[in-house]
């Protein structure tokens, strides 16, 4: 018998789209909640249109993108037009038998639908409502729109990343869609514990942008406690803890340390880099030994102040050494000597070359109706009694209309067929996919 899942019996109505919201609900589903994604084909989730992730040889379409697939695994999906009276009524019925409502629209949409928290509470008194707007639903700029990059910019996260005297490097992806999604799941789970203890639901009003600010604590306190100027010479310090020649202050990535950098490795291709960080004089001596105690590594570098003073020279010498070997060879040598080092791993490296992720079953195989044999990202934690699981591929759009509407909400088969004819369950202007026709038979 398979092990039980931790969130068995929890039902989630998922109005989310793009990345942050769907990623939140994805984890609730992966933990065993029954997630019903509510969609409408004329307002297609943008991840269903992601041009980078349609595999060659697969017919493009809303059910064919790899990015949607992984972001929406372990959900069921229905297509309902909430702009029709009938559709909205069914959505309300679904909410009345659900535990969590989660959405990441801009702040006014749910109110416009008549589904703000006060109304949701009337439908289901102990409902947990998680809203995930960019600025939240409260505060003068609640109506401002953000996507990951803008939220990161506004939160201060972007400012923390890059080389001094260059434009901000920021984050090369929507970090606050990933992490914003985490907070959507965190919010729902926290509220679920509160409901287990008290029987009461609540509205959790999350802000994607503010999520980022909560991840800048030491920089925040350096401002409010010390009045330190955030826009200062030598900040951000690249991959280092202190930029050469800049004032020695802590720049918020743990203790001040040197070496602390990315170095070229052989054969010097695009992702042939590794990082080394020596957090003590002791660790530095281990590195000197590993490098064969070269002549340049003299007593000037014995202490952290000396290594900071001569950081450019030191990093140049280290890189001549690292460039003589591959990044994994370097990692293994350093680790064997107790030195903190790791290869810079690309997506390909993680999927194909990382023995740790392979050992831990990070990429779980499962068939997808359009993509064929596919890999889905596993949970990064292992619960001993009720593990997370990759159980179902993502829904094709409207795939589960019949089972959700008929079996769960008691719609008769005739009503279902009518709904397809009159634009409630599928746009009258669009052809139906074969799997829909089949399900209606």
């Amino acid at each position, binding site marked *: 018998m398979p092990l039980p899942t*931790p*969130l068995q019996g929890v039902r989630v109505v998922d109005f989310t789209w793009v990345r942050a919201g769907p990623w939140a609900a994805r984890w609730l589903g992966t933990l065993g909640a029954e997630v019903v994604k509510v969609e409408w084909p004329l307002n297609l989730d943008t991840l269903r249109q*992601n041009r980078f992730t*349609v595999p060659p040889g697969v017919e493009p379409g809303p059910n064919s*993108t*790899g990015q949607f697939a992984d*972001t929406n695994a372990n959900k069921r999906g229905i297509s309902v037009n909430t702009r029709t009276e009938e559709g909205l009524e069914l959505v309300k019925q679904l909410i009345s038998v659900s535990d969590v409502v989660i959405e990441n629209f801009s702040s006014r949409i749910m*109110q416009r639908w008549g589904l703000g928290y006060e109304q949701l509470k009337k439908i289901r008194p102990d409902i947990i409502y998680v809203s995930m707007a960019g600025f*939240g*639903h*409260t505060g*003068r700029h609640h109506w401002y729109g*953000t996507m990951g*990059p803008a939220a990161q*910019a506004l*939160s*201060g996260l972007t400012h923390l*990343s890059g080389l001094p005297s*260059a*434009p901000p*490097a920021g984050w090369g*992806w929507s970090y606050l869609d990933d992490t914003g999604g985490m*907070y959507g*799941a965190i919010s729902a*789970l926290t509220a679920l*514990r*509160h409901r*287990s203890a008290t029987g009461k639901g609540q*509205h*959790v009003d999350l*802000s994607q942008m503010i999520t980022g600010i909560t991840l800048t*604590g*030491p920089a925040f*306190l*350096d*401002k409010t406690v*010390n009045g330190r100027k*955030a*826009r200062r010479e030598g900040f951000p310090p690249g*991959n280092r803890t202190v930029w050469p020649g800049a004032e020695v*202050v802590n720049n*918020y*990535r743990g*203790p001040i340390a040197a070496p602390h950098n*990315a170095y070229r490795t052989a054969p010097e291709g*695009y992702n042939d880099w590794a990082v080394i*960080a020596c957090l003590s004089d002791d660790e530095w001596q281990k590195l000197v030994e590993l490098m064969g105690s070269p002549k340049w590594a003299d007593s000037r570098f014995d202490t952290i102040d000396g290594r900071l003073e001569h950081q450019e020279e030191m990093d140049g010498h280290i890189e001549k050494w690292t460039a003589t070997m591959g990044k994994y060879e370097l990692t293994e040598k350093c680790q064997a000597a107790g030195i*903190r080092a790791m290869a810079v*791993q*690309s*997506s390909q490296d*993680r*999927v194909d070359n*990382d*023995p*740790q992720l392979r050992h*831990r079953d990070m990429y779980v195989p499962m068939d997808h109706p359009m993509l064929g044999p596919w890999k889905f*990202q596993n949970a*990064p*934690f292992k619960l001993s009694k009720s593990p997370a699981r990759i159980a179902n591929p993502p829904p094709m759009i409207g795939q589960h209309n019949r089972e959700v509407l008929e079996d769960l909400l008691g719609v008769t088969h005739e009503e279902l067929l009518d709904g397809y004819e009159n634009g409630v369950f599928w746009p009258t202007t669009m052809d139906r996919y074969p799997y829909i026709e089949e399900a209606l038979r």
Partner: protein
Amino acid sequence: MTSANNGNQQDSADIGGARPADLSLPGALDGLRVLEVCDEKGQFCGKLMADNGADLIKIEPPGGEACRNFGPFMDDVPHRERSLSFWHYNTSKRGITLNLETPQGQDVFKRLAATADIVLESRKPGYLESLGLGYATLSADNPGLIMCSLTPYGQTGPWRDYVSSDITQMAGGGQMASSGYDEIDVPNPPPIAPGGGNSWHIGAHYAYIGIMAALYYRFLSGEGQYIDASIHEACALTTEGAIAIYLSTGDVVQRHTGRHAAPDMSPAIQFPTGDGGWLNTTRSGTNLTPARLKLLAEWFDQSGMADDLADERYQDPAVIAEENDHIVQVMKNFFMNSTLEDAFHGGQQRDFPWGAIRSMDEIVGDAHLTDREFFKEVEHPELGRTFTYPGPAALFNGSPWRISRRAPLIGEHNSEILQGELGLTNSQMLLYAEGGVI
């Protein structure tokens, strides 16, 4: 830099967003006791629980955790009680000191674990077990106990004993392979590890999710369990589309300045403003519809900067596409003659989802954050001072989030917990102190 507080308020009508729950109510995790044996890797997960009302007891080695030595320090005076990093990550916790390598320390730990719902630890894999403090022992008489080990690479596998730091986790996890620069901005650019200790945040978020899931399962079944959480896996999960792109097409993403790493080149989206700031436009001037271009032209025209964009011929998507470079140039000129905050608010008020690249200089005191009661005054009674801390990401309207106290001083609650709760005598406390147990 102009003030961040000049946003338009015309459209700020209350839409029934959440108001923070009354502080007289219990927090969401009220009634749960957590023991935390964590350094920089796990302390943030502890904070997430403590600020939501858990009774969290932080167990440090005598003299305190080593991460009390992380700067910056209050008034730039280095001291283990003045680390702002430690302050931030340890709010709402109580703290005791305990040497877990002594028999008395182990006994005290076991007695505390018998009262706990959750044990959160980030020591080396196998360390607590080697002291007789593994999950099997601790849960023997407390079957509802949930124990989470959050470690760099997890409890099993070829890398489980690898040593790490924030930047090595960002290297292995893929953050660095996605972040950096275009050649045009930085010649021969290295991959960049984003700052701020975020590998620890990423690990802590997933550990928290695992713990909350286990709590719900305990609510259903009465059973506790053990959770083996890995920072490496958490980071490997946190590069958005990079893995999906590789799995779909075999393409490996390339790094681009301030925007998504992608298999191909994409237009720049960050533009300098006249006051030395940078505006992130999420997407560049492309994707403009005629209606949106008209909004831009009217806005720019107010300062005579619209160039020819008000011309009727731009009300044609084909012309917009054709003239993209020119349109972007007009936008750039406008931004260079604007302040960062004016460009940001002006764009948002016209439904452009742009973001000012703000630093703490602009964020602290921001009006929208003030509306959300984000700035929390936290008293440090031993200093006679009060400092402003960051508040929560979300407003919970049914269970208050709060910083119930500043981070514990070293061994601050030894007497309260060891004597008050466990009943250690004065002479035991003396012997334990002199013997290096506490």
